[in-house]
């Protein structure tokens, strides 16, 4: 596939602060790669395979322990995948899997490492991004300890509403894009437990669950419960 133009790269928030000359260098090094639905992009613990940034589609960031899976996040266009190996030369810190057909920008590992450490503005944005993700991880860890499953369900629904909710007359409508397994894995519990919590919220009139969408009927109550 063809390399991206500097204009395309500039439109990626992660790279927006780079100067034109830095973007030109980056554009020369970047390829685009396509992945099919559910295809593994890289595995946790494997040697760093490169720097990836989502161009089109969604990617699941996953941690696996024995046969259990934790969904850390679903990242979208413009988001970089694993940056940690570029900071400590270690292996990938999580697995990445395509969610639907995905196109990624890709830079081979050695080239990416040289670019990051040779371009102060890029290094700065990498450190910033990892710092922000570290903050999210600290919150995720304490949510797992402090909040029960229902509170975590409420929090995820509110986050989804903020990102992609559509205001309707009776509430905020969310398309049900996550499978039950993905939803549970994002909350950090079993599928049956997450579903039971969601149904309980419906019984209490806080949400309405339909085949393809969930409507948040009482956002204030949801926020109080989160």
């Amino acid at each position, binding site marked *: 596939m063809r390399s991206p133009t500097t204009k395309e790269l500039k439109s990626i928030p992660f790279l927006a602060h780079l100067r034109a000359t830095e973007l030109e260098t980056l554009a020369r090094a970047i390829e685009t790669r396509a992945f099919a639905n559910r295809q593994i992009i890289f595995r946790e613990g494997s040697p760093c395979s490169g720097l990836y940034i989502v161009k089109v589609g969604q990617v699941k960031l996953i941690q696996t322990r024995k046969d259990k899976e934790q969904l850390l996040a679903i990242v979208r266009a413009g988001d970089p995948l694993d940056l940690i190996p570029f900071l400590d030369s270690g292996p990938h810190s999580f697995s990445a899997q395509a969610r639907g057909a995905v196109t990624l920008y890709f830079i081979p590992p050695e080239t990416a490492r040289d670019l990051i450490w040779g371009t102060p503005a890029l290094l700065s944005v990498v450190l910033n991004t990892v710092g922000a993700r570290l903050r999210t991880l600290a*919150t995720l860890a*304490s949510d797992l300890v402090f909040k029960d499953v229902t509170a975590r369900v409420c929090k995820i629904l509110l986050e989804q509403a903020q990102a992609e909710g559509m205001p309707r007359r009776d509430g905020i409508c969310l398309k049900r894009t996550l499978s039950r397994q993905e939803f549970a894995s994002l909350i950090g519990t079993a599928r049956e437990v997450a579903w039971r919590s969601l149904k309980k919220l419906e019984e209490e009139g806080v949400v309405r669950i339909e085949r393809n969408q969930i409507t948040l009927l009482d956002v204030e109550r949801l926020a109080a419960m989160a």
Partner: protein
Amino acid sequence: MPVSAEDLRSIFLFAQFEDSELDLVREIITTRDYPAGALVFSQDDRSPGLWFVRRGRVRLYRVAPSGREFTLCIARLYKLPCLGACPLFDGERCPANAQALDDVTIYFIARQRALEIAAQYEGMARLLARVLANHSRYLMRLTSGLALHCSTPRLIDLLLTYAQERGRATERGIELDLDVSQNLLASLLGTTPQMIAQDFARLERAQVLDARGKHIVILSIARLKRMI
């Protein structure tokens, strides 16, 4: 009191620094002593800078609205010694509280100076990168443990880490002394002291360890690993 190059190099993050870089750091670093129990910084403080634990232990923890505490990690000279890296770059608020568990000595660099040096000297930038990476990997392991395991495997994982760090091979197995109370252990594992007591009892019944207060003998490390 000025910080010597030797003192700084005792913190592994500075071990590979060139002499010239160490001299720069020594010019801007200050020493602070805190008594056991003192708060080093609070959650929601604006990022003042970077702390390096030189002596003693500092726990990083969060508090729920109910007052319940969860200890994210214990920072010490040889493990996760640097605190404050998370809000350093965005200048946002600290995501956790830090409290001295012992009488501690901490080296401190103000935020702006740390960023200036990191922008000019690759050694400091690499140090910050390493700190962020170490903390990220640590927290990812912690969250997966919390999300995917009940308290027993989390306790086993912690005991295995302690065994590796400070265990002594003896005729009985691997012996180690915990340097945390049962309450702190529970706070580290995101559970209650009662659950921890039950987990220890379960492991003793399975004859994989013998626990006498803080003194632990791991009778079979292989069997303990299989129980995760």
